[in-house]
């Protein structure tokens, strides 16, 4: 690309110069230089494992570089702890949520900075008041007194954003903030970002949704395999340019589309009612991809949890192949050939301190690869290795700790865990959350292929293009009720949004 990757003469708010960082077996960053100007939104894109989060962690003081330096307003700074970075005016919204579930929204936002009286007692009224003001300014409709653990994941993400913004920092780093948000919440966030820019703050913004780059960024930088490939104004680039820079090759069609004609009904829900959904009935056919759309809090994940037996519905019932069944635990669900990819990879997905192998194999061990209680180590390793290659998990080996993988690669491992079960019914809750464009279309192809082979897929997604591009039918939920089911040739974004927002 024509524009130099980095112009040393310009006056930057923050500048990274020649930053490198290696982990055992991986070069995460290789001589990366990057500048962020005041009053601008700088997008950072790249494939899973390209080094984006690592670079941001270095800037936010969570990780020390092997070499290179950071400059703030032209002066070299040492940001070796998050505290120092915060003091220097840099706040970060993490890719994985870092809130304490048992504490309230207000406590989480102001932790360590609570207003206290002279006796050291926290002044709760003031705390609540401050929180309410902050949330109102950001137009986030969350009660300051609820425990974070009770909020749906998208709301938690909003709280995380509020927390970062409460520091009134000069530079705000956002690592895939919208991956857990619905489009409407994302719009809200973009308004806030626009206000920040107008106020002269800078935003470093990581995303896999390229539309967002074109919508909000003043500048975009691309990382590939730890190297800085280039930077430019989004206006000078096309979507395809950007993808080519990210993956180093052309990508063909984005959505493989729903394959084949669905077969017999395998799963039928009859008037299911639970804590967050009411009177939900639907049928799912073999080989069908049923998209489930809706806004945050529409009860989609709770419905998935009920189908999988995690929190069974209070009334109503399920039938499999026309036979009424009771699914009251994930074990029974798995025994019936139902698999679930959960939405929150940190809380209910990853075993963070265990290896990739242990994360992949665990569910399959319930039914396979075990003889007289002893795990057939070789067979398991072979199957997991094949799965990991198929999904192109970027890692030095199967024995690497999953906590060391990039977010998108963790997601692939969790998807692999489900696929190793060879389920008949696959429930996917945001299957491509945090996954890069290239891997995303690979996962889409995989899902389409599974459906073509007869797997029934229920896919929850907050990305309308994904829903529209993949599903045979689209079911829309609003506040716990199904507000409509559309055939894919009738469906269009406007219609879905209308059903979802009602």
């Amino acid at each position, binding site marked *: 690309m024509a524009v130099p990757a980095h112009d040393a003469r310009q006056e930057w708010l923050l500048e990274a110069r020649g930053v490198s960082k*290696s*982990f*055992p*077996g*991986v*070069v*995460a960053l*290789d001589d990366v230089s990057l500048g962020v100007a005041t009053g601008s939104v700088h997008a950072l894109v790249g494939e899973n*494992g390209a080094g984006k989060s690592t670079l941001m962690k270095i800037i936010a003081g*969570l*990780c*020390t570089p092997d070499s290179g330096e950071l400059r703030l307003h032209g002066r070299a700074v040492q940001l070796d702890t998050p505290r120092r970075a915060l003091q220097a005016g840099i706040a970060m919204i993490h890719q994985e949520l870092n809130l304490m579930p048992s504490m309230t929204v207000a406590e989480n936002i102001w932790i360590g900075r609570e207003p206290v009286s002279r006796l050291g007692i926290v002044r709760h009224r003031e705390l609540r008041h401050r929180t309410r003001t902050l949330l109102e300014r950001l137009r986030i409709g969350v009660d300051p007194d609820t425990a974070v653990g009770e909020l749906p994941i998208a709301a938690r993400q909003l709280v995380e954003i509020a927390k970062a913004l409460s520091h009134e920092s000069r530079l705000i780093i956002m690592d895939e903030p919208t991956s857990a948000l619905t489009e409407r919440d994302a719009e809200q966030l973009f308004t806030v970002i626009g206000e920040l820019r107008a106020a002269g703050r800078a935003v470093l913004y990581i995303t896999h949704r390229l539309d967002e780059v074109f919508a909000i960024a003043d500048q975009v930088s691309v990382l590939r*395999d*730890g190297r800085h490939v280039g930077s430019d104004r989004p206006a000078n680039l096309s979507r395809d340019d950007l993808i080519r820079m990210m993956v180093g090759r052309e990508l063909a069609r984005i959505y493989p589309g729903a394959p084949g004609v669905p077969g017999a009904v395998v799963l039928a829900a009859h008037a299911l009612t639970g804590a967050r959904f009411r009177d939900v009935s639907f049928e799912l056919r073999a080989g069908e991809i049923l998209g489930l759309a809706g806004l945050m809090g529409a009860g989609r994940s709770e419905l998935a949890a009920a189908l*999988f037996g*995690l929190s069974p519905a209070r009334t109503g019932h399920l039938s499999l192949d026309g036979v009424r069944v009771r699914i009251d*635990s*994930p*074990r029974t*669900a*798995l025994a019936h050939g139902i698999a*679930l990819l*959960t939405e929150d990879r940190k*809380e*209910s*997905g*990853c*075993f*963070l*301190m*265990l290896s990739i192998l*242990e994360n992949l*194999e*665990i*569910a399959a*061990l*319930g039914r396979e690869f*075990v003889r007289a*209680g*002893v*795990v057939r180590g*070789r067979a398991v*390793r*072979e199957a*997991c*290795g*094949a799965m*990991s*290659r198929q999904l*192109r*998990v*970027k*890692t*030095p*080996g*199967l024995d690497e*700790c999953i*906590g*060391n993988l990039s977010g998108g690669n963790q997601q692939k491992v969790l998807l692999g*865990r489900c696929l190793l079960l060879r389920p008949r019914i696959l429930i996917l809750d945001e299957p491509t959350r945090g996954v890069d464009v290239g891997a995303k279309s690979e996962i889409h192809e995989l899902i389409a292929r599974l459906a073509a082979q007869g797997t029934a897929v229920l896919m929850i997604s907050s990305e309308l293009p994904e829903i529209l591009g993949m599903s045979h039918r689209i079911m829309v939920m609003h506040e716990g009720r199904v507000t409509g089911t559309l055939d894919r040739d009738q469906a269009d974004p406007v219609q879905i949004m209308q059903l979802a927002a009602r």
Partner: protein
Amino acid sequence: MSQARTLETAPGAAGRRTRRWPPEAGILMVLVGLALAFEVLGWIFVRQSFLFNEQRLVVMILQVAVIGIIAVGVTQVIITGGIDLSSGSVVALTAMVAASLAQSSEAVRAVYPTLTDLPLIVPLATGLAVGALAGLVNGSLIAWTGIPPFIATLGVMVTARGIAKWYTHGEPVSLLTDAYAGIGSGAVPVAIFLATAALFHLALRYTRYGKFTYAIGANPQAARVSGINVGRHLIVVYTIAGTLSGLAGIVTSARAESGQSGMGMMYELDAIAAAVIGGASLSGGVGRITGTVIGTLILGVVTSGFTFLRIDAYYQEIVKGAIIVVAVVADQYRQRARRRGA
């Protein structure tokens, strides 16, 4: 087998892969270091060798064998993210019950005058069953009522000690059969310790039981989603731990040739210490039997080293406490290092 060599490695990464030591390497060095330190101090202060004294080594290993047996079970409990405070009391309870069924006909005031000179299998099986039952109670309380393991096992700890005292109104149970005493004689306790360690080392590494145990400790919620019956598995783990405490109680009473309700005092803490020194993390998901064995030996070396140097027992406890604190701090440090990717 076309195994996964490197899957998709970042370019330039080949050959830069740093070699990783097994996690036990560090504490093994501590063990060797401590032993050498006592050796040197021995030559300086008491003009004797610490290590080259067969008798001392045998006594040392015998002393810690009982702790080691308990620690094998406790390690598994800790891996699930739990804790077992009841081990010491369960040792006392099983010692009493097993000994009462192992009395010889010479015992004038036997607990069960009609039940003397029973075959060895009776006290053995009953002892193990008592231990298993205590573990079952621990596990069921934790799994079904959701009480934190600390509280549940604390309750069982107090109750079991109480039953042990009530059983004979505080009287010791003595004059046991020769066969029973045989379990505690010679190197038998050491053999039992090593056999249980080997068995559960293999179980943790190569069986589904082991995989599930680590998974539950690493993330119980994700374990449930993966189809593991978390409650049932916890009951199994606590029952195993209880059974091993029972085994320790049998060995203890056999070695002393009597059962006393005061046996096993504070053993639970030594066993937890051995596991933690050996690298088990109290936050769950991490721990290995090999580490625990080394941790047990470290406790043994410290105890016998201090006795050897004729230092007061008070100091022993102070130093033991310090070692435990250092081990826990090291664990915290390791976890932070893992999180920060340092």
